[in-house]
């Protein structure tokens, strides 16, 4: 019954394969960014468990929604005086 394309112990012969596994579909709450409030402290980038905060040239520019699971850690960690990220219901 073993399928021919199954490798020994399920090893995948390349690295960084989590990038190919899209987890955005799990999301119920979507993070939205108010760039006017954002101070580019990048705490959200540090704390995001899915590496779904996109940073370009040291600036927070948005979210990778193919991987963001909507956990809300970024919104929670965004400093109290800033609160540039809010979680909103995904549209049905």
């Amino acid at each position: 019954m073993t399928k021919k394309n199954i490798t020994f112990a399920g090893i995948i012969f390349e690295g960084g394969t989590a990038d190919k596994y899209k987890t955005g579909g799990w999301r119920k709450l979507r993070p939205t960014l108010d760039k006017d409030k954002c101070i580019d402290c990048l705490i959200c980038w540090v704390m995001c468990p899915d590496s779904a905060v996109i940073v370009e040239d040291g600036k927070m520019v948005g979210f990778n929604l193919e991987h963001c699971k909507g956990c809300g850690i970024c919104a929670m960690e965004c400093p109290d005086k800033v609160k540039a990220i809010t979680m909103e219901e995904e549209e049905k």
Partner: protein
Amino acid sequence: MATVTGTKKVVGLTGNSAIAYAMKQIDPDVCAAYPITPSTAIMEEFSGYYADGQVSTELIAVESEHSAMSACIGASAAGARVMTATSSQGLALMWEMLYVASGLRLPIVMAVVNRALSAPINIHCDHSDSMGARDSGWIQLYSENVQEAYDNLFQAVRIAEDKRVLTPVMVCMDGFITSHAIENLTLIDDAEVKDFIGEHEPAYSLLDTENPITVGAMTLPDAYMDIKHQQSKAIAASKDVVLEVAKEFEQRFGRSYGLMETYRLEDAEVCVVVLSSAAGTTKVAVDELRSKGKKVGLLKPRLYRPFPHEEIMEALKHCKAICVLDRADSMNGFGGPLFTDIRASLYDAPERPVVINRIFGLGGRDYTAEDAIGVYEELFKVVETGKVERLSAYLGEE
């Protein structure tokens, strides 16, 4: 600390000292362990060899057995030859990681010094620790005495690392009875050990950055069962490798091992099946009863996982009545783990022997030759009357 001064001659060592010395001879790349009675002296003495620069091992002192097995898994996946040791609650704390080690097909070798599980708390010998891990995908070898534990450890390295197997192995011996008693054993020269075990050639390595791999990725219903099927076939096939390795070991070192040991079993009418040190005690009873003309025999499984059910059926099928002595209770209302395996194996026998079960020796309760004689007498009574009064019971229960 015991000092081993010579090789190729008989020395007196405790089971723990012999295992520590075998580990020094194997000189694994990584050893991560957390001490627990009665296996503590293994790591204590191995730490001595490490501190004295007698091994090249990376010794990792961790904060728990769960961490010990986790570190072993990481090191093994990185391509290292890895060993550890534990007992009882320590093995229990490793539980989830045991399945990760076997599922990732990592050839880790672990000495398990058998001790009862809490509660009530107890530090003495029974098999409830390793019996609970019998279906964790590890190969299990049980050792009757210090010599067997020492010899099994080298063979375990070969079995685990065999390309057809790539499965972790537990080498079990009885806590205190074997681990703390000094027995005579013959040591093997360091060079001969090295030659027998060979170089470790890992199946894969996380440190091979030229060829990056992902280990332990999420697998869903389309793949999980196929990977388990691979593992199941490998552990079933490891039985032949156990025999091959034993044969080579005998050719090199003169001591014979198999899937099991039989003692005066060929023409026996009644037989006891028991693991580890209690088999030695039972042999005394067999000799005494044989001297009175009673046809009694013994079967001591050495390889318990995978379970060599066909060979065991062949060895036992001529008996009229068999008592399986379990040093662990499955708490299933039917009988101990060895009993259910032996009884199931005999289902295909042309004429099924009567198979009864006695639980013995829990938490270090003494098991004497007189106890064994009592078991054989009960078996003769079963044969004479054709009646089984108690299928499964505690030895000596009222």
